[in-house]
């Protein structure tokens, strides 16, 4: 079994650029260096202007006590980590953290499972499979404002079509958007629906890259459909799965529009995540609280950054 796997893994490694021996660089002449710098400059300027500076400003915002007056006229007092202390000791923080974890992990697990099932389903080419797969992409293509408003309308407790359906079959009708028990479930359902196509597309393209020889060989050896998926398809999909999950994680952590449009994080913070809480603090009240809002945003960045590090570590291990 193991011996059948090696030839598949090898070609990928053989084509890696590290194998190509580079010619020893000659000492460059001055104009060339300037040219190199000129090519580099736009990227550096772009990175500094659109990544480094905003990030720096956000950190600065979170370390000062901004009031309306000091925001406008400058001179906000430097208060160190006071905003972080305020945010961390706020009872909403624990709620928001828990909701973020449930929302993110719940979305990832269901999206990935459904996406994988659909990808395997569509990898068997049948009539109209291309068309069907294209139709599955619709949720991903719709503007979020459209899909979230549609979901909010469908899940409306009084006049929503979902409750009309539940009523027709005699099931209880939850107040999806206005009950603290159901609001997180409601936004979770909407987010899963939006995210499945993304998983489907990535996993499907991963499946295309697996040579059919391997599967055929295993089938000849007597492996059933489930065994082939479990021992061949799934392990070979691991790199694609990892990147799918990581991208999904970073994307889901910062999901904001769906929740804000459907429930505004309510009622009573029951669907507040770190992302919506940050917006709520900065822009949701009558008077903005930029300091604590920026602090929550920075905590979110740290979480996403840790997820990225985990991925890099995993990738390095896989390459060894």
């Amino acid at each position, binding site marked *: 079994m193991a011996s059948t796997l090696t030839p598949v893994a090898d070609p990928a490694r053989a084509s890696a650029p590290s194998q190509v021996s580079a010619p020893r660089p000659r000492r460059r002449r001055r104009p060339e260096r300037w040219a190199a710098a000129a090519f580099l400059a736009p990227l*550096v300027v772009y990175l500094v202007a659109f990544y480094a500076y905003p990030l720096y400003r956000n950190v600065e915002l979170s370390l000062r006590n901004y009031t309306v007056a000091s925001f406008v006229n400058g001179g906000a007092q430097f208060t160190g980590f006071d905003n972080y202390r305020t945010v961390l000791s706020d009872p909403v923080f624990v709620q928001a953290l828990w909701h973020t974890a449930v929302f993110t992990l719940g979305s990832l697990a269901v999206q990935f499972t459904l996406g994988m099932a659909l990808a395997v389903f569509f990898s068997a080419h049948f009539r109209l499979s291309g068309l069907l797969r294209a139709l599955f992409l619709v949720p991903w293509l719709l503007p979020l404002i459209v899909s979230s408003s549609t979901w909010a309308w469908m899940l409306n407790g*009084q006049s929503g079509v979902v409750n009309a359906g539940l009523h027709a079959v005699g099931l209880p009708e939850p107040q999806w958007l*206005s009950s603290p028990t159901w609001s997180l479930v409601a936004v979770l359902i909407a987010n899963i629906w939006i995210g499945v196509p993304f998983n489907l597309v990535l996993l499907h393209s991963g499946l295309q890259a697996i040579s059919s020889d391997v599967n055929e060989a295993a089938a000849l050896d007597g492996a059933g459909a489930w065994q082939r998926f479990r021992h061949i398809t799934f392990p070979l999909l691991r790199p694609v799965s990892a990147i799918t999950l990581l991208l999904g994680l970073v994307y889901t952590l910062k999901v904001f529009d769906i929740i804000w449009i459907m429930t505004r994080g309510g*009622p009573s913070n029951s669907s507040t995540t770190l992302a919506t809480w940050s917006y709520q603090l900065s822009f949701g009240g009558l008077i903005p609280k930029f300091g604590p809002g920026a602090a929550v945003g920075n905590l979110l960045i740290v979480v996403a950054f840790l997820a990225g590090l985990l991925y890099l570590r995993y990738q390095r291990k896989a390459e060894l």
Partner: protein
Amino acid sequence: MSARVTSRGTAAGLLALALVTSLSACSNGSSDDSASGGEGSSSLTLWDPYPQFDESDAWPQLVQKCGEENGVTIERTGYDTTDLTNQVLRAAQQGNAPSVLVVDNPVVSTLADGGVLADNDTTGLDASGVEDNILAAGEVDGQTYGVPIGANTLALYYNKTVLSAAGVDPSTITDWDSLTDALQKVEDSGKNGITFSAIGTEEGSFQFLPWFWGSGAELTDLASSDAQSALSLWSGWVQQGLAPQTVISNNQQSAWEEFLTGDYGFVENGTWQLGPVKESGLDWGVIPIPGRDGGTAPAPTGGEFVTIPTQADTASYDKSAAVVQCLTSADNALETDTTLSYVSALADVQEQQVSADADLQPWVEAVSAARGRTSDGLGTDYPGISEQLWNAVQAALSGSQSPQAALEAAQQAAGSN
């Protein structure tokens, strides 16, 4: 070798960055010049919270007319109410605030306190003749900021068809008990009792305040037993099914749309729905919101102030002030307030409005009895208190906390701000 290349690359990158920065600084400078306007300037900017109007509507046309009368062209931009405050704060920070700002009255004191607005003595604006309870929202430390464009407030619209089918006579509704009885009768007749907006924004607090004040509670003590009785009234309605659960996520417009389905006995809504309700085809009426033990509950004053933000170039105040006076003058106020479906802030104009449309009479009375949200010395404390109040309303109505626990938590949070 590679280190040397890198350091050179960095140096070049920094040089390029410096270039770009200085370029953008130049363009900033030039745009600032044209925005603040020199001697020969003939353009003003005006921001308002009425994004629903376009150039063909009466309000933008009035803005243009007031510009032409004063020899300036006015560039008008409409923002969503919540967004407007943020936009103004950012613009003020960058030193390019609009020349004229139409802004919701409860944030005037906070903007004024933050130095965003110029007071009327500085700009030469005249707010005399405006009713005291309406002007109060624009007064901070003895200075007045801007002129109110008109006022609105809340009352209960009812559906005559639904009430008569349920055997309810609206004139018998004089206090909370008789109102709850009426809601129960409507519910028993197979319709819904009442809908309102308890959303977690300023709209939610605005809608709750008539009940809060009608119980005798004060915003300085959110946890009083009077306050608890008001919140218990609302959460009781939701628990007994007299009001739908959707009130928790309704804004005022969604609550209004529920009422328009014809399935509701009552809706709490504002002066601005007077035009729409006449076109709705419903058989409707209006009663004031009752106090707990009878009488009319004080409703909050709604409506905007036309203000002049602080400018580096104080010479521009003259033109701005002339435009603001034009927009709020008695001649134009009638037209403006009819457009917005507001009650005028000027007593003379109110009489004209009532003689033109008798349906406005109860609203004029309600506005003169209404209370400013930032009055009673609350001023810049109001936004923080209001946020805790709407949180408490949400917690109690969704059932996650008892009214008492929710209000005690709110008072504690508001007190620590």
